[in-house]
Every structure is written in C-alpha cells, then in structure tokens.
C-alpha cells in the first residue's frame, strides 16, 4: 500500500490558474466578482535551479501548517524497451530498501516518527516520491530524499522478495481485473512502436526475467540531480526551501544522461479491432483515436489550439451528468450502464482520446459501439451549442478553485507538467487555452483526428466464471 502506481491515467487535468478573475468576468459578467476574487488568487510558483541542474519549484499555501514534498525523476515505462518493461516501477519499490546510511526499514521509521504520510508512484513518463507532513519537519524529508537519490544499496535478498511483491501487485491490479487486462492489451495493439504500448507494471514475463543488476544500472543512469525536480507546496518559505535543497541535493554532481530516442509511432493505416475473451460478467468496450498531445503543440507540430479543442471535446462528451454520454446514452436511449471519454493529452509523447462503455442490461455490445461512434459523427457534422461550451468553461473555472483545496494535487500537477516537458508555466496557459476554444475548432479536430485511420477498438466478451481456474502466472 505504501508503494503505489498510477497507471498514467491523468486523463483530464482540471486545472489551476491566476486567471480566475479575468475570465470569470468574461463568462458571468458579474461586477461583484472583481473584489471578491482578487484577494483569492493563487500564489505564484517560485522556481530555482541548483548548479548540478536540479530544478526546484515552491508554491505557498498558508491555510494549514503542513507541506508536501515530492521528488520527481524523468523516468518511467516510456523510457524502457521490450524485455525490461516494468523496470522503472520495480526500481521504485527498491528505493524503499535502504541506503548506505539508512538500512532497509529505517527509512520508514524515520518518516513515521515525524508524522509524515509517504508514498511513491510510477507512470509512463515519470517516477515520483513524496512525503506529506507538518511544515516544521520538512528538513528530515529532504535529507532522506537526497540520500536515496544517489546512495541506494541493492541487496539481492531484498530484491528477490520485492520482485515477488511486484508480481502480486500485477496480479491484483491487472490479471484479476477484466477491464484492466483489456486496457493493457488495447494499448499494446493501438501502439506499434511507441513506448506507450507497454504496461507501467510490466509484462509478467519481464518481471520474471528481471535482475538486480537491471535495476542497479537503471538507477545509476537516471537517478541524478539533473534529471530531477523537487516540488514543495504548503506553508513554507520558498527561499528557505531553496537553501535546504541546496544543502542536501547540492552535494551531487551532474551526470550525463542517456540519449532518449524519438520512437515516434508509425502511421496507422486502418481500424484495429481486438476481442478479449475473459471470465467476466459484463461486456465492455474501449476505443481510442490517436491524437496529438499538448506537447505536440509546444513543439510546433500542430496548432496551439488543437489540444485544447480536444480537451473541450472530451468534456462535451463526458464532463459530468449534463454531458452528452450521460444525457443521450445513459439516460436518453438508456443503452449504456456507463460511458466515458478522456483526452490523454498531457504526456511526454502523443497518446489518444479514449472512449469507454459498458452496455446497459440486455443491450448488445455492438449497439452501444454504434451509438458511441454515432456521437463522434455528430461532432463532425454539427457544431456544439454555445450552452454546452459555456458549461465546460464554467466547470474549468470552478475546477481550478476546487483543486487548490488539496496541496498534494497542486504539487502533483506542477511536478508532472515539469517532468513531461510542458513546464510548470503551462498551468497558467491552460485556462485561457480552454476558454478560447470555439465550436468550429471542436468540429475541426473531430474531423481531423477522430477517424478510422486513428482508431483502435477493444471488445471484452465475457466467458463463464466457473469454466476453469487459471493457474497462477508465477512458477
């Protein structure tokens, strides 16, 4: 439980900004708003850089005497290759197994003694470690994180046990969950050569073949200050955080990083369909259209507005109970028990706009598939209404405020944006970007990207639960 894994499903990042005031005025033209909101603006992000290349981002939130610290490494499944999938995540587990200074188990005791909650997560593009604690205990956490950045020991006995824990984690997360298994195989089919085809937890056979030396080499290559970002959010003094960071992380030298190959996904030439037959009770659908990401716009490969239009498009389909899927498919025609859409636009590499669905009782999967695709067709032929656009924009503005309620969430946004190469400044661009989206632009991206040549469809066909019991995957 202490070690977790977010399988990179930051589908929609609903954001924060300093633009609340301006854009609320535009949307609601309320005059009382100005005074009220101006005093509630989000505090700025303080940015520092150590001589060794490590970046430090600090954001103040003085509501409670607490802070969250996160150390982010630009390393995850998308840096791995076939045969070593899951290595970044397995290494994350080993990061709790002791350093030259603090032996295995001691670290947890220290963290516990300062009242901190700690954890770590690995995704396709990054690995992060964090502590949430009382603000006067910050230094202890920094010391621990700095220590394990370079001084990890790799004990063979610990590795042997821990890799078994990772396999249990895989069984629990994926192997015994029909929809998780479907998602895993769906990604592997949708992407031919992009590293996003591999599961973050790794294929079981790769976990079985994983060696201690693999983890060791991976650590040596990627866990270096010039590949890391420290994020601190809470009731802290930014300059003091910088001074402490310098004291603990400043002692390390910068190290050359391996070259990261492009691995740009080859062009798809037609619809890909897969069927999964699994012991299950419910049929299920997963469909994905390859789309550019926010990163594509940043690199000048697509117009700046396109990713924002895709983001709004996903919210038109599934941005709450008044969105089209809920209104037309779950209620309306009553053919879906559940339906969702999410734009995976915040990675280091382009990903997909993903649509999922579970048929309502006694409804054929094919019928739901058609209805979902029909909704996509409507986006191409009819402009979305002003009312719908206004609703999405109102939610984005409110979402920005609600998100500030959690300092952990705030820190995670900063760290992930920085680690995928978008930069934390992107937080300020997000809301204006969304608010500028027009109905025509939504139709344009629908016509351009939501087409057969970008589409992969996976269908889960339930098999009886009592037919056979699978043998455990481990030998």
């Amino acid at each position, binding site marked *: 439980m202490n070690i977790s894994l977010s399988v990179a499903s930051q589908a929609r990042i609903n954001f924060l900004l300093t633009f609340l005031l301006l854009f609320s005025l535009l949307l609601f033209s309320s005059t009382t708003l100005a005074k009220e909101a101006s005093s*509630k603006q989000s505090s700025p992000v303080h940015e520092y850089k150590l001589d060794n290349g490590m970046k430090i981002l600090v954001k103040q939130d003085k509501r409670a005497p607490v802070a969250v610290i996160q150390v982010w490494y630009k390393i995850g499944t998308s840096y791995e290759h076939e045969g070593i999938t899951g290595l970044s995540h397995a290494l994350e587990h080993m990061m709790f197994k002791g350093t030259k200074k603090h032996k295995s188990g001691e670290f947890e005791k220290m963290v516990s003694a300062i*009242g901190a909650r700690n954890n770590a997560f690995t995704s396709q593009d990054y690995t992060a470690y964090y502590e949430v604690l009382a603000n006067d205990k910050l230094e202890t956490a920094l010391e621990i994180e700095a220590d394990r950045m370079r001084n990890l020991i790799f004990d063979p006995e610990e590795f042997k046990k821990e890799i078994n824990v990772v396999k249990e984690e895989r069984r629990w997360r994926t192997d015994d969950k029909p929809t998780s298994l479907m998602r895993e195989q769906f990604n592997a089919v949708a992407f031919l050569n992009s590293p996003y085809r591999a599961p973050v937890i790794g294929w079981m056979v790769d976990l079985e073949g994983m060696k201690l030396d693999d983890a060791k080499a991976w650590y040596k290559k990627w866990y270096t200050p010039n590949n890391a970002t420290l994020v601190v959010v809470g009731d802290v003094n930014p300059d003091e955080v910088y001074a402490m960071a310098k004291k603990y992380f400043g002692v390390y030298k910068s190290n050359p990083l391996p070259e990261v190959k492009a691995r740009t996904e080859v062009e798809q030439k037609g619809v890909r369909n897969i069927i999964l037959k699994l012991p299950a*009770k419910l049929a299920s659908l997963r469909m994905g259209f390859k789309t550019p990401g926010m990163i594509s716009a940043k690199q000048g490969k697509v117009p700046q507005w396109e990713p924002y239009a895709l983001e709004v498009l996903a919210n038109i389909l599934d941005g709450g109970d008044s969105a089209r899927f809920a209104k037309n498919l779950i209620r309306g025609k009553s053919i879906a028990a559940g339906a969702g859409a999410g734009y995976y636009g915040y990675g280091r590499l382009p990903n997909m706009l993903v649509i999922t669905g579970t048929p309502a009782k006694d409804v054929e999967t094919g019928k739901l598939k058609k209805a979902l695709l029909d909704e996509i067709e409507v986006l191409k032929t009819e402009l979305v209404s002003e009312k719908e656009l*206004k609703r999405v924009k109102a939610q984005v503005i409110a979402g920005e405020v609600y998100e500030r309620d959690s300092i952990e969430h705030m820190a995670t946004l900063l760290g992930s944006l920085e680690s995928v190469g978008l930069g934390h400044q992107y937080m300020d661009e997000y809301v204006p970007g969304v608010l500028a989206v027009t109905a025509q632009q939504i139709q344009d991206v629908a016509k351009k990207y939501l087409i057969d040549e970008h589409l992969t469809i996976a269908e889960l066909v339930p098999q009886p*639960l009592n037919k056979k019991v699978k043998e455990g995957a481990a030998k």
Partner: protein
Amino acid sequence: MKSFKVILVIFTLFLSQLVAAAPKIENWVTDSGLRVYFVHVPELPMLDLRLTFAGGSAYDGDKPGLSGMVTSMLSKGAAGLNADQIAEAFESVGAELSSGSARDMAWISLRTLTLDEQLKSALASWQKIVEKPDFPEEDFARLKKQALVGLQAEKQNPGSIASKAFYKNLYGDHPYASPQNGTEESVKAMTLADVKSFYNQYFVNKNGLLSIVGAISKDQAKEIADRVSKALLSNGRGQGEKAVPIPEVKPLQAAKEIRIPFPSTQAHVMMGQPGDKRGDKDYFSLYLGNHNLGGSGFTSRLMKEVRVKRGLSYSVYSYFIPMREKGPFMVGLQTKLSQTDEAIKVARDVLKKFQKEGPSEEDLKASKMNIIGGFPLRTASNDDIIGYLAMIGFYNLPLNYLDKFTENVNKVTRDEVVDAFKRRVHLDKMLTVIVGGKPKDADTDTNEATKTAAEKNVTPAKAKK
C-alpha cells in the same frame, strides 16, 4: 533537568501548533429542528455543504439497496425539472452535486464557488433537490436496471465478493449485514412507493445534520441552514422523527471459514470480527494498538511480516471501522493462490502474538509520534474538515474532539492497549473469508461453501502448484 526542559519546550511548541491546526467549530439547531455544524474557512472562494441523515443501508429493512436507490434518485427530478435540467443547472455554474449512502448514513452534498451568481444559482438548485424531489417513474425503471448491472460487476470482482461475504457472515441477521447495493431479488421488487416512503421517513430535520465549510460568514451560514431546514419540512414531513436506534451487534459464537471459488490468480482474504463503535470507551486504545498491528503501512507488524520479510502480498492491513454500533475489525490481504495458506498463517500468527503481548513501549511511542506529528494533516483541506464535521455531528462526539485528539492518543498506556485487545479480540471466534481457487464441483458457480472450524483446524486452500 535539562532534558525535562527540552521536553517542555517541545510540548509547548506542539500545543501552539495544535491550536492553529484544529478548526473552530460552531454549532446550532435551526427553528425547524435541524442540527448545523459550521467552520468558516475564508481562503478559497468555495463552499461545501453536506446534509447527512441516519438513513443508510442499515435502515433498508427487508428491501436491501433501498437507501442507495433513494440517494441515486434525488438528482433525477425535482420541482418539475428533469435529470437533464438538474445536471445542467449545477454544472453550468461549475457546481458539483453528489449524494450517496453508507451503512449508517445517507447524504446529499454540494460544492460551489462563493462568487455571488454561482452561489445563488447553486443554492437554489440544491434547495429544489432537498425540498421537492419528484422521483420520476422512468428514471426509477432505468436505475433499477443499472443496479442489476452493478450487481453483475460485483460478481466479477473477487474483492467485492469477499467483502460482501464478510459483512454477511459477520453480521448475520443484524442490519449491517444488508448488502448496500441490494440483491437481484430486492432490486427487482423495489417500488417507487418504497423510495418515497423511505425518503419521507428518514430525510427529515430531526434525523438530519447539516455541515457547512467554506468562505461564507456565520450569518450567511445561518441563512442557508434556515432555507435548507425549511425546505425539509415540505411534502408533509414536518420536523419528522429520529430514526430508531440500530440494534446492538452480537459477538461471533464460533470461528467460521467461508471459501468461495473464483477463477482469479490471487486469493482475497478477509479475517475479522465485530470491532468498536464511535465514542467507544476503548476507541483510542484500539486505534493506537491497531496502528502498530496493521494500520500504519510499512511500519506495521503485518506489513513487515507478510510483505517485507516474505514478499507474500502487495497490500496487507488491519483496521477498525467504528460505526454507530460495532463496525468490523478486519485483517486483509491478497496473495497468489499457491501461497494462500502460508499468508493466512503468517497474518494469524502476527495477530496472535500481538494480542498476547501487545505493542512494545518503543512501538507505542513510534505510533504516538506518527499520529500526533501527523495531526495537522487531518484538517488541512476543506474536504478534510467537512468530513470531520459530519462525523463529529452525526455520532454526537464532543465538539472538542479534534482539540483533544492528540491528548487522547498520547495518554493511552501500553497496558490499556493490551487490555483492550484481550477483551475485544477473540482469536478463537474469527471469521475468515477466502475468495479464489477451484470449485469443488466444476458445475457450481461462485456459490459459497461454508464450514465452521476451530481456529487451529482451518484447512488449507486447495490450489497447490
């Protein structure tokens, strides 16, 4: 002397921090009889409201799933607006409406911005939901079908199967045994009249509690509370009545093991018995002891023995879930089928040793440091605060519950923990639920195979590879 001084200084520092950390709770009762708990948090321009009623699944009676159905129906029609219009009304101003139900309670929540227009609009819509729910026939028919799909989803999830079997066997004929999402029979038999009568009986002022957290003044909070509480009088409900008390939970009489075959790679294991109540005299002793046993993640005994030392499970834990009456005490883990017996044995041994010896003084100190040092995290967000308000109010805990929390944790002694675990945990009367592995007879689906066994005679899982 010197060290004493240091301790004193630390203690004083600590106390000053606590004063800053615990939010100031104000409470009152409206003229229409609704209890209100309020915390003013000015920093973010947002407001949270949560209306809670003693009307969870424990009150479903012979209609399991009814409470959940009532809360699902609330957003489907009110004051002449249909489900589309209601969703639109909230979402067009960025507000979030939610509702739900647990065993003790049912609730309706609102999160909104406090900017004038949005606040006014969101409150007006929320009031409609509370005042005039329409419970439309067509939506009811659809939600019943959805509920049946939900029950199918439970059947393909070994964790859900285990949890359902655990509650069923732990509570027997007690209302806590009632499956929160109902059964196929109960869902099919449910009528709109059932829904309406449940709503009119339980969603009333005298059975309710309104928690308010956010950037509004106390005057504004009073005004909102008055509006909500007046709205609750509608439909001839008047002030209503408090729900009748939930009966006492009887202890298990013998050890019991339930095995449910399932085509999974792992076995899901849950072991336990009735635990403690909110406001229980042993609450802090059990909470503190369990922190060391299986509640603190990596530093806990269960995690060390089952995961760290042996690599048997990704997650392993124990906890008490205090409720109005005794909620469960539970130990849980998942492990590949061939390791099921070993993992269960290790977990049982840890529990046995802990119950016999209790935590060491050092363990106890470490747990106290973690709980006390981490106290400010408990109320760091509006979301955290409203959770505590609803809990303190619903269970009638003292208003200074949070102010006294660290003090109450700190004063628990080792002897008290040992004593509480001896009196409250009975190793010879544990319930064990194991989901996973081959059925005895290939023709049976996932039907339960029940058997009663003495703790030491528990037979191993069959999947041996």
